[in-house]
Structure formats: C-alpha cells, structure tokens
C-alpha cells in the first residue's frame, strides 16, 4: 500500500516548509518532497518602484541575511548607474558582508544545528534546541551568543541597525567606520577566533559518531556552483562564476556575472512555491527522473570549487577539509557543510582582521553619484547560504520594469529534495514513523541552512507532521511531533 508521510512544519530552519515522503506499496520510499509553502511576490511588487529603493526593500526578504540582499541589490544598482564604487566603499561592503557571515553561520551552527550534533539526533525533541543547549552547556552557549553578537555589532556600527540597516546604496555606502569601532573589533577578534576553532574541534571530535550520517546525508555526485576570485580564491562579495562537476572538473572556470543566464534556468513544480533552478546546459529532468542539471551552492560548494582560501587559518583547515573527498574528488556529503561553514567563519574573521588594518578603509569618499546609464543591472554575490542573483531591468527614469531574484536557498532546492530522499530511504523501515526519522530528514534540510524567507516567493515555518497517506490519498497514519 502506497503512503505519503507529511513532515509539517520543518523546524529549526529559517522559514516555513513541509516535507512529504511517499512510500510505494512495498513500504519503500519512492519519493520525498520539500515544499516551500509561502509566497511573497517580491519580484512582482517591486516592479514600479525606483531602483535606489531596492536595497532597502529586498533586504526585507530575509532577516537573517539582509546584508546579502542589500549588497547584491546595491551591486545590481551600481551596474544600472554604470559607476565604479569608491575603494573604501567596496572594502566596507566586504567588511559588513564578512560580519554577516560570522553571525549567520554562527546562528546556523550553534542555534539550529548544534543541538543535533551535541545533544544527539534522537535526543528529546523538547530539549533539542538552543535553549536546551543553553541549559546543557551555558558556557558554550554564551560563547556562541557572543560570536553571533560580534557579527551583528559590526553591522550595527555601520548601518545603525543590526537587522535591515539602511546602509548600502547605489554607488557606494552611506556611512563609514569610526576609530573606536576598529578598536572594538580588534579587541574582540581573538575571542571569536577561539570560539570558532573550538567549534571546529567539537565538530571534528563528534565525527566518529556520525559515520552513517556522513554516508547518507546528501552524499551524492552533483555539480557545484559559486563565485571565486579571478585567481581562483574563496570569494564572497564579488568574483567570477565557477561551475565544477562531481569529479572536480571545471565546467566554467570563471564566467562573467552578466552571463549567468547562460548557465542557469529555473523550473517550477506544483507542490512548492520555491522554484527549481538547474544548470542549463545539462537540462532539467530527463526520462528516468534524474536531474542532470542539479547543482549545489553554499559553503560546501564554495569550499569545493575554490583553489585556495587566501588566509592562513582558513587555508590550513581547507587542506584538512580536502582530505574528506574521495580520490581527490570534491567533498560530496552535505553533512560536511557544517565543517565548510565553520571554515568560512574562520575565513571571515581573518578577513575582518585584514580589512580593519587597511588604512584605505577609512577614506571618506564613500559614494559615487550617477543616474541611470544602463537599462539592466546584475548583482551576484555569495550569501552565507549560497550564490545570490539580483537582476533588474529599468526604464530610462529608473523605474523597475522587471525584477529577477534567484536566492541562495532556491539554488539548493533540487539538492535538498534529493538529500531528504536519500535520508528517508536509508532510515525508513516499515510503515511506522519514528521521531528520529523526522529529525534526521529535517537535519538533511538544515544542512543547507535554507533561508526560506529568502526563497523570495517563499517562506515558511516548518511545522512537522508526518503523515502516512495511501496511494488513494487516504490518511493512514499521522505523527505530529511536539
């Protein structure tokens, strides 16, 4: 008897979503779907606004990574005006972006995923959360809170608010740093570096207990997409698009941003408000249901595709990370995203250290002025969760005619679906739903740290109901957790 299991809402992710698992007549998992259940329509309601308002509007797509949207949007606006922004402004934008990586990755690792890693995948769901963590390990929790705060505080210094700061504008930024800010950052950096290294140690120490998870949590060949510096280094703010296949071969070495449409197209499915982007040259679905154009973005992809990080500590960890891939291939298992994420925090902290010591960052010229010079602008950057695309078309007065947003989480949509299918297949036995299974499937999603607010069209809280539905759609069993 075929059945469908519903997980609703998926929790400890940033947004609203549901999961359904379909079982065939033999009780084997035949498919698993990740549903994004909200729609906000940014692409449509932004039409008719003027482009300089876009950084402020689009950052409201997400409360966790507003900086990414603000900057991607500002970059798209820069392209519309056709100006090169002042050096100091670029450095400041990089600084705020690194600050965001610190706070966002810290949130993902400590607040959302660590409860599974440190308390166990099958521990009591009532305590398996950040509050449980605070109670179990207040010292670590305090460190985690302070790491996130460090990032948020830098954002507040520059933009007056830690969430949705009205700061980046077309042509540059609105405000610079003060001496005392640099002093504060300098003083706090070592502590945050220690916390990150501690986290890496905790994670790697726990690896022994997760060998099965490493094996089946999104461990499949796929393409990897992300930005790299012209030299091939790890890059978040600006750079060239690189596409690597599962064997480590570069399909695109460094594509100019404006050409992103050549490699990425989007599909839609009736069961999700989130679109399904795929690598265009390889196509969407083929006869046997495989999706050859499936690619992954985010920390795992970024760390896989870059040739080097460019800072000593991050490069040291990167070398260690590379050993996890089999036969010199890229690292496939999404479980290692946690590690990649921590490497990126390290990288960001090192970069922040570099940037504040650069005298050029204190230059007072922060903004270039210009009107509409191009009818189109593309802004691509690496958000914590992956590559983020903003593309605007404007009329000659600067009013938006068309807005296209392809957000990080969207890029991972196909991969997330495949990941939960893989997890469900290996942990599902018989027709009974265990709490542990639910959480494992959800953790599979959490690996991607999906920001569903970000998924533009989509946001959702993931309540979790597992439902067994027979092939005729009748409810057979239901498990509501909580």
């Amino acid at each position, binding site marked *: 008897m075929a059945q469908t299991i519903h997980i609703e809402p998926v929790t400890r992710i940033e947004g609203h979503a549901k999961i359904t698992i379909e079982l065939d007549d033999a009780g084997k998992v035949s498919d698993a779907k990740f549903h994004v259940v909200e729609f906000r329509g940014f692409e449509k309601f932004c039409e*008719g606004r*003027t482009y300089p308002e876009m950084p*402020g509007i689009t950052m*409201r797509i997400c409360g966790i990574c507003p900086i990414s949207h603000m900057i991607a949007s500002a970059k798209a606006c820069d392209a519309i005006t056709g100006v090169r922004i002042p050096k100091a402004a670029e450095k400041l934008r990089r600084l705020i972006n690194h600050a965001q990586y610190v706070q966002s990755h810290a949130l993902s690792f400590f607040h959302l995923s660590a409860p599974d890693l440190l308390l166990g995948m099958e521990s009591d769901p009532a305590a398996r959360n950040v509050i449980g963590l605070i109670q179990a390990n207040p010292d670590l929790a305090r460190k985690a809170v302070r790491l996130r705060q460090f990032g948020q505080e830098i954002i507040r210094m520059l933009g007056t608010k830690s969430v949705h700061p009205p700061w980046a*504008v077309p042509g540059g930024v609105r405000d610079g740093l003060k001496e005392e800010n640099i002093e504060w950052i300098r003083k706090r950096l070592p502590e945050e570096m220690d916390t990150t290294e501690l986290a890496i140690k905790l994670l790697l120490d726990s690896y022994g207990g997760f060998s099965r998870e490493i094996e089946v949590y999104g461990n499949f060949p796929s393409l990897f997409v992300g930005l790299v510096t012209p030299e091939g280094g790890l890059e978040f703010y600006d750079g060239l698009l690189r596409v690597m296949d599962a064997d480590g071969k570069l399909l695109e070495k460094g594509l100019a941003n404006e050409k992103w449409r050549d490699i990425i197209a989007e599909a839609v499915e009736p069961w999700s408000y989130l679109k399904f982007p795929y690598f265009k040259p390889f196509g969407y679905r083929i006869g046997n249901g495989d999706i050859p154009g499936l690619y992954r973005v985010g920390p795992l992809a970024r760390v896989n595709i870059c040739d080097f990080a460019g800072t000593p500590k991050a490069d040291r960890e990167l070398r260690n990370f590379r050993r996890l891939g089999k036969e010199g291939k890229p690292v496939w298992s999404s479980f290692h995203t946690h590690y990649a994420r921590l490497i990126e925090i390290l990288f960001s902290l090192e970069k922040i250290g570099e940037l504040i010591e650069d005298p050029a960052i204190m230059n007072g010229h922060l903004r270039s*002025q210009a009107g509409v010079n191009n009818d189109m602008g593309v802004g691509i950057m690496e958000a914590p969760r992956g590559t983020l695309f903003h593309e605007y078309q404007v009329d000659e007065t600067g009013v938006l005619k068309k807005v296209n947003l392809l957000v990080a989480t969207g890029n991972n949509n196909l991969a997330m679906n495949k990941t939960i299918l893989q997890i469900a297949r290996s942990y599902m036995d018989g027709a009974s739903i265990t709490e542990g299974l639910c959480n494992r499937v959800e953790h599979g999603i959490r690996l991607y740290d999906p920001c569903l607010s970000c998924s533009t069209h989509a946001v959702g809280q993931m309540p979790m109901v597992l439902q067994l539905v027979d092939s005729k759609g009748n409810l057979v069993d239901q498990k509501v957790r909580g």
Partner: protein
Amino acid sequence: MPVVTLTINDKLVSAQSDKTVLEAARDAGFEIPTLCHLEGLTPRGGCRLCLVEVEGVPRLLASCVTQVQEGMVVRTETERLHNYRKMMVELLLAERNHVCAVCVMNGHCELQSLAAKLGVDHVRYDYLCPDLPVDASHERNTRDPNRCILCARCIRVCDEVEGAHCLDMMGRGIHCNIITGMNQEWGKARSCTACGKCVQVCPTGALFKKGSSVAEMEKQREFLIWILDGRDKKVWHWSR
C-alpha cells in the same frame, strides 16, 4: 496690533489679535499636532489634527484657522481630542500604502513620528491598498502617491511661493490625487520649474529627491521662512 488675552490649557496667554490659536498655543509652549499646516503657507484646515476645544463653542475648531479672541478658553489636549487624533492618523495610514520600513523618509517622516507620538501602534481599519504608480519621470524629483496624505502643502508652495502652480489636486473623495500639469508625467509638465520646494515641504515620502534610498531622505523647511521674510519683509536670514 492689539493684544488679546486667552486661556490655553489653564494657562493665561497673551497674543496679537491677528494670531491663530495654533500660533498662540505654540508660542506658549503647547504642542498641537498638525500635518497640513506649515508656517509660511496659507492655512488649509484639512487634516483636522489641530482641532481644539473652545469653551462655549459646541464644535471642535481647527486651531490653524481660528483666530484668537479675548477671553477665549482653549483646551488642546483632552482625551477626546487625543482619541480623535489617533483615529485620524489611523485613517491616513489605512487609505494609502504607507510602508514605513521601506520608505525613503523612514525615521524622518512627520506622519510616522506623529503616529508614534500619539500612540498609534496599529491601525484598526481596513487597508484600502490602492494601486498607484510612481512617477519618476522628473529629472530631480520623484512622486510616490502611495505615501501621499493629500495635505496639499506641495500645491500651496508651488502656487504661493514659487508661483508656478504646476501641482494641483484631481478627483474627489478617496480618489483625490496630486497631479502635475494636465495629469501628465511630471517630467513633461512644462510649468514645473524644478525648484524642489514641493519636495521639501512634503511631510512624508510622497515627494522625494530622485535617487534617494530607503530612510535616506531628510527635508529642510527653513527656506520657506527665508523666502517669505526676504520677499515680504526685506529681512534676510544669513545662515552662519
């Protein structure tokens, strides 16, 4: 000019007899909220926020258009007035698409700060959500009717101070709207002198400097008094 004595909120106040109750109250240190009123423009009495109670008068009077009278007893802050003012601000917020968070005037807006001051922390009425297009055709200024409260300050400054009368109001009731020229694109309205006065007097983000980003627009209104004093009284305000 003869001077009259009146009582405002139990305080004895004297004022020149050609002053309005609003002016007298403000001179005496009482804050009466206003939106359509702006010193230097002819009073309009449209926003009704400056309503006050006057003893012996059954109706509430708009203080911006009511002249002081000897022996007048005025109250500017009663619970009734406060409630009405709150409701008026709620009605204004409901009739157009005021999204403070992504407005160019966020943090500097008169409507926003007035709402906060009056304790409007939510709007009890249905949002009407009209679909109004933004006009960015002008080389310097942008008009977003979604944020307009129809106070007509822009119309008055354009007519009375600049003398261009490029702006006016069209339609009626809830369908009123500010227009430029023959309801044409602002950039094509030849009577506009691009002086930008309308932008500066606008209390909200309905008129803003082109290219402003969210929360970036701030307005300066001193120019109005500078012009009027210079023009009418031959008194010039030299800044610094």
